[in-house]
């Protein structure tokens, strides 16, 4: 039988509306716990909980206390206790109105024969918080995915460079500048990421100007350079900017990985070397 407990947090004591912030499950021999905002190392990432828990430092302190109690009951003054004794102590004697643990229920028979860890994770996702959806891929991640799919020699430090420094010629003055990637395949090929910001036209304009400056003063040939962008970031204002950039170099939409890979494969002449 697995008995589980719910860690709760009350943000406003007057309103007294508890939020579930953790699960502690006990099979009689062990206690397994999972708390909101914890990373894989069982430590709280305050950035994850700050918007949900006003007293995030106090919360982190409580989670630390509960974890230490599970690890070593004697450290919190519970001598020679069974896991059930410890849970009783944590429920009845160690509590505040802001943070506390209360009994959740029991699982008498698990037909699927899950482990205590699996049961805890499942209870956590059902009672506390569903797992966060994966964050959308960044332009950089999409670019690298497309380059990998194109067969670019990304593991070869001699032929593939990130944040590669190039020399620009600005009205006769040599200026060093950084380009996102440089790929050696017979000749150097230069690829610059262009991050459009759909919500901030000013940022998109600034980035496009930066990109245009680079390409206008670069010493490379047009056919040796590419601009990588993510079409899912385009909005009304940025379409014109993209058109402007196309006059400097071919543009590649890395949001469509297969098409981008094919284009990159051809442009970087990856078949030839």
């Amino acid at each position, binding site marked *: 039988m697995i008995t589980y407990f719910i860690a709760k947090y009350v943000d406003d004591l007057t309103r007294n509306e508890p939020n579930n912030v953790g699960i502690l499950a006990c099979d009689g021999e062990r206690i397994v716990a999972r708390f909101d905002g914890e990373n894989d190392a069982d430590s709280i990432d305050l950035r994850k909980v700050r918007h949900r828990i006003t007293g995030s*430092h*106090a919360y982190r*302190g409580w989670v630390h206390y509960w974890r230490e109690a599970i690890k070593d009951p004697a450290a*919190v003054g519970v001598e020679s206790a069974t896991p059930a004794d410890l849970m009783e102590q944590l429920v009845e004697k*160690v509590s505040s109105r*802001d943070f506390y643990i209360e009994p959740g229920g029991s699982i008498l028979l698990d037909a699927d024969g899950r482990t205590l860890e699996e049961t805890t994770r499942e209870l956590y996702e059902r009672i506390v918080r569903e797992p966060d959806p994966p964050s959308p891929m960044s332009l950089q991640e999409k670019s690298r995915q497309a380059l990998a799919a194109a067969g670019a020699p990304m593991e070869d430090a001699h032929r593939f460079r990130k944040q590669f420094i190039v020399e620009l010629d600005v009205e006769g003055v040599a200026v060093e500048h950084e380009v996102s990637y440089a790929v050696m395949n017979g000749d150097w090929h230069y690829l610059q990421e262009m991050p459009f910001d759909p919500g901030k036209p000013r940022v998109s304009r600034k980035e496009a100007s930066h990109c245009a400056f680079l390409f206008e003063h670069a010493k490379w040939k047009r056919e040796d350079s590419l601009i990588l962008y993510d079409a899912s970031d385009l909005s009304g204002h940025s379409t014109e900017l993209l058109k402007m950039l196309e006059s400097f170099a071919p543009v590649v939409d890395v949001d469509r990985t297969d098409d981008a890979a094919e284009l990159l494969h051809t442009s970087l002449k990856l078949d030839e070397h």
Partner: protein
Amino acid sequence: MASIYRITALGVAHRGGMNAAVDADIRGIAKTNDESEFTIANELICARIGQTLGLPIPSGVVAEDASKRVYYLSLDVSFEGKALPPVIPAEFAAEEPWYAAGVIVFDVLIANGDRNAMNLSRDPAFTNPRVAVFDHGHALLGTNPPKGLDRLAAAKDVLGCAIDETGVAVNNSVLLGQPLDATMLEEWVSRAKALPDFIFEDICREVAAMQNLNIWTHDADKIVQWLLERRDKLDQLIWDNQGLLPNVQWSLWGPGGPAT
């Protein structure tokens, strides 16, 4: 370290004066004498002594509601206004050795029979985590039998913060078994022994002068007398009971104990 209290409401209308003062509210934790007639007196006297000694004890005031019910209002020192977890005694002694030693000496001085892990806090929301030492309602005159002057008599030769046959303590102090620095303990004892008589006299007489706190002037004089004797023999008392502090290396005092 001076405590910082969180303002929960701030007025805008000036109350006059050159400093443009305004009305402000701060949060406190209130307790009454409902459970024991000496709770508020114990809190007031112990807070004054502990603060004078140099411990971070939140300031407290006596307040009453519209029905004249009396409260001891300990001001809330937590940065976020949330209850902090109990300390983990070994961590507290390791991270705050100075205060751990001070709390032991203070608890002996006031015969605090309830130093559990929830009566200490270490607030991590401050850049340098801030310690608070609170809840002294079970010290001095106590709450359960023996209580009042009987408790003071019973605690005369014992630490008062460990369970023994006198029944003075309700639990063992969580700090007694921790590794403590003997030098720091001696420094705190020196501080306590240097406290002037008037610190004890003033607060006990102030409490006796307040209505509804159940301390009368002739009792206050006896409490003062007990505290002064306690202060003077503090080092000897700790030395005589060193078995209750098993993890202290007593390097400074000779085998005969302190030279008193």
